[in-house]
């Protein structure tokens, strides 16, 4: 037994000291990429990574930043907060000057706790939880928040000349309620009258009572802040009672296609998303084509685009700051005003992006089509 014990101990120590320290190279600017690259939510992290890597590659092809090549160091968090902290500590010791990440809201919060103490510039491409950036002057994001989409829908309705709108939402969930509140506030500003606001819980099977009330109020459009499965049922039941208007939704109903049996109903649906591969700006077209050239597929997960933008904002800010001083970079990020892949980006007081939302619709085969971009 004793021999084995000694052996086990020896093994443990050898493993500990085999941690290889990376050789420091002074002629590059290092930025960190932190996010969930393996495990349950790896698809989001990997989508972000592809976008970020593409941006870094293109920047280096154009001569890098401050005359130096940019090096991106990735660390996997497996989606957990303790791993995000370990990744941060590790990359900090390796001399990174800014972070793109993290991907999920939980790990982003853990990361923000650390980076805020150091004033380390951090931009998350995908964490939508409101308080990730609250009281964190150094933390930004390039994805919009849920309520933002309510604003965008209201703006789009108003642009379409709609004067009377109705809402069917679930007042017991944060997502739906948040969207509704933002939508209502913006409608009030824009002079769109909300003629009916009915509530029905997620997972209900019968929405006809609420839909009938809504139909009686004769709205020109209905806002449905739900996820795909519920929205699909609502569409079918609205059709049954003869409520034939446009239905608007947010990113939650992006997956509605598979849940609707009569695809023709989808032509009445318009929803907001972070990005569309059909976007018509020059930057977006370039992004889609070079992404396809690089990876042999389309950037269908919109976090590739917001990831690209996060890296773009960070690198542009370093260039604008003229140094790798953290405070200067943070100030430069705050002052961002650039055209990015997912639209024009500036930051508000809460470090959330003020940018365009993409509006999409479907054809009668259920294929997504890009409509327009809206700046609410």
């Amino acid at each position, binding site marked *: 037994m004793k021999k084995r014990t000694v052996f086990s*101990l020896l093994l*443990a120590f050898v493993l*500990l000291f085999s941690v290889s320290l990376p050789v420091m190279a002074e002629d590059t600017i290092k930025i960190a990429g932190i996010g969930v690259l393996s495990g349950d939510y790896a698809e989001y992290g990997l989508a972000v990574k592809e976008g970020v890597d593409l941006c870094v590659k293109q920047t280096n092809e154009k001569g890098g930043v401050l005359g130096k090549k940019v090096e991106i160091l990735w660390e996997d968090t497996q989606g*957990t907060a*303790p791993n995000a902290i*370990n990744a941060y500590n590790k990359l900090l010791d390796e001399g990174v000057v800014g972070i793109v990440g993290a991907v999920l*809201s939980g790990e982003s919060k853990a990361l923000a706790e650390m980076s805020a103490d150091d004033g380390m510039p951090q931009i998350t491409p995908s964490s939508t*939880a409101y308080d990730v950036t609250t009281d964190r002057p150094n933390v930004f994001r390039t994805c919009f928040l849920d309520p933002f989409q309510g604003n965008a829908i209201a703006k789009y309705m108003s642009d379409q000349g709609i004067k009377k709108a109705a809402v069917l939402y679930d007042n017991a969930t944060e997502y739906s309620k948040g969207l509704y509140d933002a939508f209502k506030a913006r409608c009030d500003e824009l002079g769109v009258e909300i003629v009916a606001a009915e509530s029905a819980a997620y997972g209900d099977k019968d929405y006809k009572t609420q839909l009938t009330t809504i139909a009686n109020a004769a709205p020109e459009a209905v806002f449905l802040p739900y996820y795909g499965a519920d929205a699909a049922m609502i569409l079918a039941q609205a059709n049954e009672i003869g409520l034939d208007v446009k239905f608007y939704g947010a990113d939650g109903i992006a997956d509605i296609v598979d849940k609707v049996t009569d695809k023709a109903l989808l032509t009445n649906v318009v929803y907001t998303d972070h990005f569309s591969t059909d976007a018509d700006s020059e930057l977006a077209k370039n992004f889609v084509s070079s992404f396809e050239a690089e990876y042999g597929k389309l950037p269908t997960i919109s976090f590739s685009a917001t990831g690209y933008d996060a890296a773009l904002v960070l690198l542009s800010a370093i260039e604008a700051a003229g140094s790798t001083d953290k405070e200067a970079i943070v100030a430069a990020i705050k002052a961002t005003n650039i055209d990015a892949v997912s639209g024009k980006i500036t930051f508000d007081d809460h470090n959330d992006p003020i940018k365009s939302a993409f509006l999409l619709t479907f054809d009668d085969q259920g294929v997504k089509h890009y409509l327009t971009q809206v700046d609410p």
Partner: protein
Amino acid sequence: MNKKTKAILLNLFAVIFLFLTVVILMSTGVLNNYLSNILITVLITIIMTTSLNVTTGLLGQLALGHAGFMAIGGYTSAILTKIVLADLGFSFGLSLPISLIAGGLVAALFGMLIGIPALRLEGDYLAIITLGFGEIIRVVIENMEITGGAAGLTRITRMSRAFSEDRLTSSIVQFAIVFWITVLIIASIFTLGRSRHGRAIISIRENAIAAEATGIPTTRYKLLAFTIAAFFAGIAGGLFAHQTSILDAKAFGFNKSIEYLVMVVLGGMGSITGSIIASFVLVSLPEMLRGLAEYRLVIYSLLLIIMMLFRPSGLLGTAEFSLLTTWEALERFFARIFKREAVTRMPFQPRYDVWEGKPVLETHNLGISFGGLKAAQNINIRLMNNEIVGLIGPNGAGKTTVFNLLTGVYIPTEGDVVLLGKPIQGKITHEIAQNGISRTFQNIRLFRSMSALDNIKVAFHSRMKYSPMSGILRNAQCLSEERGIDIRARELLRVFQMENDADTIAGSLPYGKQRKLEICRALASNPKVLLLDEPAAGMNPSETAELMNTIKLIRDQFSVAILLIEHDMKLVMGICERIYVLNYGQIIAHGKPEEIRSNPEVIAAYLGQEQTAQTEVNQHA
């Protein structure tokens, strides 16, 4: 310097050396932020695995919800420091210890609440219940407002920054706090494990039925082990909360519990040092493999599989790595000339009360029915002091049933048992054992992986009084009681010429000695009545002859009444003063050996054929 002082000094020296080394490495920057944070994680993991080892290793119950207790402790202490104590104006240095202890206590409370119903179950069932409990905790936390719901609790004061403006100083303070708490907890688990309470817990793992029959209140000790494990897990949770500054209920799910269980299994169930080593390796391994990107999970899993294939009982099995034994091995190696100190032999003095002239044990029309089947009825047995009585009968006659009735394993449906003039109706097995009925089993039930000496000490359990806390602190009461018990246990072994086997693991003793050890253990709880269930089963003729001498010796030295079930007629006829014959659950004959031998009813019962039966019984005699 005696062995114990030496062990304490050696370990203390090693721990202080380790502590100072890390502090120096941290101050010089060799251990950077990244590595020192991993070290904190390792320490917290060590608390989790060593505490889980109390339930899984020492108690031997599979628990799958350990991370749930960590969550309770984590959230309790985080909410305390973040909301309550901060509002009261407490400084962090003051609120941290309060909230850590509170976290531990709340977790312990939940451990007890879940333990009361759950620990009546065993094995798979307990595993499922603890699994369900872990999930319930997670779901409840996700739906509560004060815990931050599904979004998690953020901005908990972080130890690595809170103690000083200077990051390094604060990190070192954090390390010192976590390190010494870990050391304290490990030391507590060690000392508890070696106290009478620890022996009681381990004896349940080894053989729950024997533990109960030896006088261990098994349910209470299961609960104690469960509660202690939960308490330490709660403290680990509190430390974790103040390390990461963010709590997310999802992080404490089933996977986390399994992760800790894997570490315990890898380190060796029941080995505290094994858990420590496994925690260290398994926490640092994924970090070391970071450079290998996506392959690291594959490599990590492969290493787990390989380790399990080559060391299925874990790195250390149930053994402990001990500095003292290593030291002593060196000492022996370098200084073989030194003679070992002679052990002072104290004369054996039986200190047992005498119960002269009156029956020690009496049953009145004792019986039990299982449904319609009367397994035993109208059993009237009377045992006088210092008497050896046989209970014989053909297979299936109900002999072991009678033993089970006497020891409270079965509750009699009729009649009663009177021990030393008092009825023992309604008492459960361990209480009956404490009151004076001891037994051995047909199939030997020793605490196989405990030493012979510890097997005896378990039986002395109810004669010691010190509390679990005394056991952890090893205070004067604990030490003096343990010393006394050690002497008594060795004396008892010497009566059976087994003093040289004291430190041998019970399971590795030869068969005959295992039988003797079981009898020895039964005698340790100071019985008035000793029930021996087929003590000669499986023995060869010379072992049987020795056993006969042993039984007589017990009667002479211990002032105890012996009731013995045996098929070996030579033994029964040779030493029993009276014999009861049982058939179909009833006593069909009673008398002196020679009367029984010629009793036609007995002969008929045994063989159904008068002529052959006569021959058979005579041959045995």
